[in-house]
């Protein structure tokens, strides 16, 4: 009986170990790594905002295609894959488009380095318990505002075509939503 119990215990441990290894990139049994597209807010997830079509997914040097030379900055910091998706607002945001760009930089260190790259954006640090990510910053202009943050291996940029304080709250809402999905 004891032998059977030991055998079952070992079997269970092995099964759990293999299950952990089968998660995407196989970095360890405890770690779950999601593709950038899995982090995007889905339809109905954030009230008043609807995804426009399907997400664009870009891998490796294909990043040059959507953002041309800007890709160099991401590639320099270990870029692996990205997902871009636009959201159309409704109601008071009916004429406003919000865009989300999520970049998987391969490691938390690379994502942090990208965030600190002098050619990346600047902005005002967004801190406090409500802030998204490991580090975050906001930029607010007359016609648009944005949030950038990094967390784990992800670098996230949320941008909206409106520059008022309400718009800033919307991009923060999206940023928090994405951040909460990062394991």
């Amino acid at each position, binding site marked *: 009986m004891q032998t059977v119990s030991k055998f079952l215990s070992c079997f269970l441990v092995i099964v759990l170990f293999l299950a952990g290894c089968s998660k995407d990139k196989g970095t360890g049994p405890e770690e779950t790594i999601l593709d950038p597209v899995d982090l995007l807010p889905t339809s109905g997830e954030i009230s008043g905002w609807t995804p426009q079509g399907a997400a664009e997914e870009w891998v490796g040097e294909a990043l040059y295609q959507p*953002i041309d030379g800007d890709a160099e900055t991401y590639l320099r910091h270990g870029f692996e894959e990205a997902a871009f998706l636009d959201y159309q607002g409704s109601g008071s945001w009916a004429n406003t488009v919000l865009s989300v760009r999520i970049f998987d930089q391969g490691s938390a260190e690379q994502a942090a380095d990208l965030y600190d790259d002098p050619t990346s954006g600047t902005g005002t640090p967004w801190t406090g318990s409500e802030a998204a990510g490991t580090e975050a910053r906001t930029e607010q202009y007359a016609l648009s505002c944005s949030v950038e943050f990094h967390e784990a291996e992800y670098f996230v940029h949320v941008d909206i075509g409106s520059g008022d304080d309400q718009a800033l709250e919307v991009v923060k809402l999206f940023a928090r939503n994405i951040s909460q999905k990062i394991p």
Partner: protein
Amino acid sequence: MTSSRPESREIDRRDFLRRAAMGTAGLALTSTLTGLPGGPVRAGDDLSRVVIVTDQAASSGITIEPDVAAVMMNRGVMELTGRDSAGQAWKSLFPGITSGSRIGIKVNCINRYLSSHPEIAQTIVDGLATMEVDRAPFPRNNIIVWDRHNYELTRAGYSIYYGSDPDTHRCFGTDLSGYSYDQDLPITIQGQIMYPSVLLTQHCDYLINLSVMKNHTMSGVTGSLKNHYGSIHLPSALHGASGQYCDPFIPDLNRKLNDQLGMIQAVNICDAIFGIASGGPMGNPQFAFNGLLFSRDPVALDYQETQILVDQGCGTATIATHIDTAAWPPYQLGTNDPMNMDVRYITDPSTGAADDDREPSRPADYRLELAYPNPFNAHTVIPYVIGGRSSVSMRVDIYNVRGQRVRALYRGRREPGRYRVVWDGRDDRGALLASGIYLCRLSAAGHEDVVKLSLIK
């Protein structure tokens, strides 16, 4: 239209006054984009004219007002060419044009949120259609608005059309079936073989370069010179190593498009209705400048665009070294020296308001603002404000901590407004100064202001 790297340059008082009387804006003795002057002083008609038309009615929110934009477009071309009518002005840009000629309008659509706007391209098409060529209006179907990809054009709001209706202009990407990149006419850019769009090599006799005002993390700014990255098959190979900032790839590309393909770039127009000053080239527009810039000289145009971006807080202007390089041998694509530019400002052409009637929040004082970066190594940008209601004599100098003046950065007259000057850490003789603290002093109309600069090598 060429510049060279000068050994030294002196401006006498008579020449200075003559230029001031000509209304030359942006006068600077030593301040260019990166502190390196772009050529010998030129005179009279040899100056590179840049026309900057602004109209606060050009946009409402993020929507462009097409009627206002049309007035701005025609007014700008008339000022650029010195012609009294839009039709004559446009026609003068295309020497030898016939009713069978084809005119391309190269737009920049990679950022769907801030592309060369379809409304602005349309004003160009409408303007070209006012030309009388061979005793008839120029056929719209002979005009092709183009960029790399159909999907980029579509996303930016353009309608793809490749039919033959004589009253409809064509619009499509190089990737349209039957078109592509010209493998018979390769050009080599810094060792990289590039195939140019067949639209450039086979389907356009003249080109209008319609860029859009944005900063760029890899090249400092994007403008008319960089717009040609959309004219070749593999622009990703032309960004260079880290710290190279697309320099000299951009000047080399433009030089070879001119020399090897015989590109006739009739005019450069920058769509500056909106702009991105930080984090570009992607993202939503950040501010409304409500302007259009015109020049036959792409270097001068990009220089002036950069000035506008710096005024809007752009922090990447100092890496836009390709603009300076483009002015020097072996490229010599234009001038980066404001002394060699004839800059003309037109405000609110749709309302007819004269410049003097406007009170565009004129600054009330004379001051230096925070330099950036500071501390600095290669260059620092020093913004400053000239207040009052009329132009004043002013100067900006650099002093060491012993009070000795080591560099004259600017001496001349300035209208009230916001400006900036760049210091490259060198003295008047061009020698690099030692690390340490330096003082920048502004003197204008009896006012003085000083900021501290930290040079670190």
